[in-house]
């Protein structure tokens, strides 16, 4: 019904200038509001995105590509991929387990459990990193013992993985819970009465129903895990070539005034962000009915 917001259909073209549908603003107001929205978005969002690619290509594409083959860049890319490859599946498993527990059963304290799962969203990444350092750092009880047994967590890969899991903790569960609440329990119960085992019911009934929502959550989780800076900065120790992920390496290069190298690496992450955005939008268009997004309120 708002399709003719800017282009009046012939049926309404002949009406007097004074008459206007009760649910519409004047044409001038509409144009001004659209202009304000687009202008604001261009300055606030599009300009920063564009400048990443512009700065990366400031001295030509060749130099940008070369900078990505420097050892510190390649090791950063490798580390980031490893971190995502561990933390995303872990979070997916956790998200499914939490959503299954919360939506298929009735128990006391459910609301409290959901609050706990959501908690990492409202904690500063730096505070999250600090908390992990205090728990697993060398001068803590557990950390000291782990270092002594040759399995350090802080300033090493496990710490970075833990920090990445922390900041992405609610993503998958939050996406699955509303969808699974909506789908109810009847289908699984039917499968059980037909003699299916619990696992079989989950794999053949639940999983197909939640696959798009799961993919959606995993996408968001992955983007955040690869791009996390604050929490990782605290726990990684920023050891060049060892614990420097892509965002950490971007900071190092930037602080050393290696602008092209920093922005080239940033462009890779920005491209990844755009890809995530495109896939996410595609999912929203194609499978809106099987996602929680858009019906949260």
């Amino acid at each position, binding site marked *: 019904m708002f399709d*003719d*917001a800017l282009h009046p259909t012939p049926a309404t073209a002949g009406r007097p200038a004074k008459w206007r549908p009760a649910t519409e603003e004047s044409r001038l107001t509409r144009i001004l509001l659209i202009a304000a929205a687009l202008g604001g978005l261009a300055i606030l969002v599009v300009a920063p995105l564009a400048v990443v690619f512009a700065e990366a290509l400031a001295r030509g594409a060749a130099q940008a590509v070369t900078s990505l083959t420097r050892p510190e860049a390649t090791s950063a890319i490798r580390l980031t991929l490893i971190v995502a490859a561990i933390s995303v599946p872990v979070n997916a498993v956790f998200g499914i387990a939490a959503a299954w*527990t919360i939506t298929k059963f009735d128990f006391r*304290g459910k609301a409290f459990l959901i609050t*706990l799962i959501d908690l990492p969203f409202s904690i500063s990444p730096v*505070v999250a990193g*600090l908390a*992990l350092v205090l728990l697993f750092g060398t001068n803590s009880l557990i950390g000291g013992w782990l270092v002594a047994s040759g399995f350090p967590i802080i300033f090493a890969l496990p710490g970075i993985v833990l920090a990445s899991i922390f900041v992405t903790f609610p993503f998958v569960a939050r996406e699955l819970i509303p969808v699974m609440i909506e789908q109810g329990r009847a289908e699984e119960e039917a499968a059980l009465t037909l003699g299916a085992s619990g696992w079989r019911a989950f794999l053949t009934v639940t999983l197909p129903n939640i696959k798009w929502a799961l993919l959606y959550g995993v996408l968001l989780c992955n983007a955040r895990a690869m791009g996390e800076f604050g929490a990782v900065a605290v726990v990684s120790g920023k050891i060049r070539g060892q614990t420097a992920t892509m965002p950490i390496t971007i900071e190092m290069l930037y602080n050393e005034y290696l602008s092209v190298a920093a922005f080239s690496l940033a462009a890779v992450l*920005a491209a990844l962000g755009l890809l995530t955005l495109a896939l996410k939008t595609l999912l929203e268009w194609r499978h809106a009915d099987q996602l929680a997004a858009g019906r949260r309120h």
Partner: protein
Amino acid sequence: MALAFRLQKSPMPGFGLGMGITLAMLSLIVILPVGALLARGISYGPEAVWATINTPRVWAALYLSFRLAFLAALFNLVFGTLLAWVLARYDFPGRRLVDALVDLPFALPTAVAGIALTALYAPNGIFGGIARDLGGKIAYTQWGILIALIFVGLPFVTRTVQPVIAEIEQEVEEASATLGAGRFHTLRRVILPMLLPAALTGFALSLARAVGEYGSVIFIAGNLPMKTEIAPLLIVIKLEEFDYDGAAAIGIAMLLISFSMLLAINLIQIWSRRRIGHV
């Protein structure tokens, strides 16, 4: 813990496994680390924690973080509602692309946003250059921090308000008009009050995110003590000085701010549910 989540009878299998994974992960990732932070504060002693926070530099950083986060969230409240309205109500070329772009701040890593914003707003950048010609400075001042915080919190209000706008019944707006109200009166008295609970939720989410934001801010901030030093940076500095107690003290202060904002969000939702039946 397991006793607290006692199950009522159910034929569905997998409660033990699901709850086991959930609680194990929650403990390892969230409860134990946050507990370690609080324990550190307790062993350091409440007086010592207070003494750490109660210094001009820490107060300045906390005040700066909170004040600028509040201003950024306020900007996002207004602009985000406008954006939601335009996206939900008007059709224009490229609307779906614009709709997708709104989420970019969620998809772009904060460090990338940080250096990009700095490149734009530094004196030799495009917008920074304009400011310099006009005799002003954006990057390395509080204005720069404000812009970074606006960026990271931009999608929250739009994404909470947009579905509510889509749900407003056309008849409600028409009713207002048949009662003699002009369009502006309808917007102000009927539509905006209906959007208010969702907009406030988005505002609180944006605020919570901005208070704790680190990655996008430190590049553009300049990081001058007492002037452009944000609270999360102070934690990082303390850690680099191996002052774990000091870091824990500031961390606990920020945790309390986060918890009170979480509480505020929940209260807003309870309030609006009670008032208009549902959110």
